[in-house]
């Protein structure tokens, strides 16, 4: 990693990171603030659940129990629905920002620096990882303060989850040359993962589909209640790092005609 490139990358993305921080807080607040009002109206809570399509309930791992406590409610409504979308968007944006340099034609100034391609690429990735961990840490801190629960296991799961999607988006950035496709494909793969999990849980005899989906490894409510799932953490974080290693290799050997 190169410190100058890392700081530059982190600095140029600080406004986006701050906005994401606000977004995370809004997502948490929407869950935590809404719970008291809904909890006082048991009928409304039941209606809310009934209004959700069964496939959505399955896909996002929601259950009647999810809404029976503040912890379950927050983890189901915020952490299973909005938060992962926010974090995948962050990961997709980080990869897209690298592709944007190719698209805009400013990458060649970076290639003309006495910094190896892998080091430069790793610095961009490192800045994105630090930003993602800051956002996950902020989420964990918000949950701990609001609910008074130990959230370190969630921070680990959220970090591994985001690490995986950062790996996906950086691999796409190493293969493509426009930010739009990098962003869109990262989100498309995320949607596909969700779709596979939903099908696997909704259709009888189709549970094998979940084996092809890392989304099924992301279960914040379970993690918050029972502690970290080592397999999920290893697959998500290890997969993300492997994808990044592959991306760095592709980046190193790629032609970037001026």
């Amino acid at each position: 990693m190169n410190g100058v490139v890392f700081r530059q990358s982190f600095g140029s993305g600080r406004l986006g990171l701050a906005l994401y921080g606000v977004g995370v807080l809004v997502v948490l607040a929407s869950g935590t603030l809404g719970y008291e009002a809904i909890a006082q109206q048991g009928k409304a809570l039941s209606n809310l659940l009934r209004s959700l399509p069964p496939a959505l309930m399955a896909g996002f791992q929601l259950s009647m129990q999810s809404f029976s406590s503040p912890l379950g409610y927050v983890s189901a409504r915020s952490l299973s629905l909005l938060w992962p979308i926010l974090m995948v968007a962050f990961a997709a944006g980080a990869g897209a920002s690298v592709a944007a340099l190719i698209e805009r034609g400013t990458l060649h100034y970076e290639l003309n620096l006495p910094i190896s391609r892998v080091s430069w690429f790793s610095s961009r990735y490192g800045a994105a990882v630090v930003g993602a961990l800051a956002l996950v840490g902020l989420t964990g801190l918000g949950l701990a303060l609001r609910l008074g629960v130990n959230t370190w296991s969630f921070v680990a799961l959220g970090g591994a989850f985001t690490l995986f999607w950062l790996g996906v988006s950086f691999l796409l950035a190493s293969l493509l040359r426009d930010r739009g496709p990098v962003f869109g494909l990262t989100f498309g793969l995320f949607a596909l993962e969700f779709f596979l999990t939903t099908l696997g849980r909704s259709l009888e005899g189709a549970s094998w589909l979940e084996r092809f989906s890392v989304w099924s490894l992301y279960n914040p409510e379970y993690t918050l209640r029972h502690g970290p799932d080592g397999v999920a953490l290893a697959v998500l974080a290890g997969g993300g790092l492997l994808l990044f290693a592959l991306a760095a290799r592709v980046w190193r050997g790629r032609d970037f005609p001026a």
Partner: protein
Amino acid sequence: MSTLLLEQVRKTYRKTVALENITLEVQRGELFGLVGVNGAGKTTTLSLLMGFVQASSGQVRVLGENPWNNPGLQRRLSWLPGEVRLPDAQTGRQWLSYQARAAGHGLERLPALEREWEAVLDRPLRTLSKGNRQKVALLRLLSGNAEVLILDEPTSGLDPVAQERLHETLRKLAQAGRTVLFSSHSLAEVQALCDRVAVLDRGQVLQVGRTSDLERRQERTLKVWTRDPVPLELLTVLGGEAESARHAVLRGNHLLEDALPRLFPYGVEQVHYGGEGLEGLLAHLHDAPLEPSVLSGGRA
């Protein structure tokens, strides 16, 4: 040892052949031009020398080293792209400062360059005109201590005054021992500026030689308007043709010395004399096989 060397280089992008069997040498302190129409292979040649792309076959050497995946060598090179695009959100000063820190050199020369080029460095780059962005990129090129400067159509966004200033700067750099390689689709610019030139077309080198050689090989055009019609037989002898009864066009060399005096008896009223342009030169080079003497002149 040549500062820049391409030896029998071939470059393909999937099934598209961008360069075919290119051989070029540029010596230290030379101001060398690559000229050709769009798609001739100029930018691919520069990309190979900068290490942006890898040769499919053949040998590429810059200062004796292979530029592909060679970050240490980048310290000794400086690049200016044809179409200057810069990070929108930063100011020129912020961007130049980052580039200098990452490249590991200071910005001691920046204040003088800023004054000389009247560059706007404290406004966001997205708000600058094309010419002012080009100046910021030029300051990046010139603020380091690179031994080799590689420029891809550098004057495309500059006004005539700035173009001339850049030409003067490049001449001084070459005189100071820097090697300058630049591409252009303007034959006149290359002839005015460079010691030697390579003419590229469809991925091949058509000619390498001194710019004076190139000028000699260029066919000239003489357009003459006369008071009285010129006999067709005379025009045929002079290698010309009649555009109308009193307007003739002649092509060839030594037209002013040999052909024009023979048209004076017909009352020459107006004359237009010029070079054939890049397209004409390319057609001429395609038609006329390269002479061994010219080829040997290309290998310094």
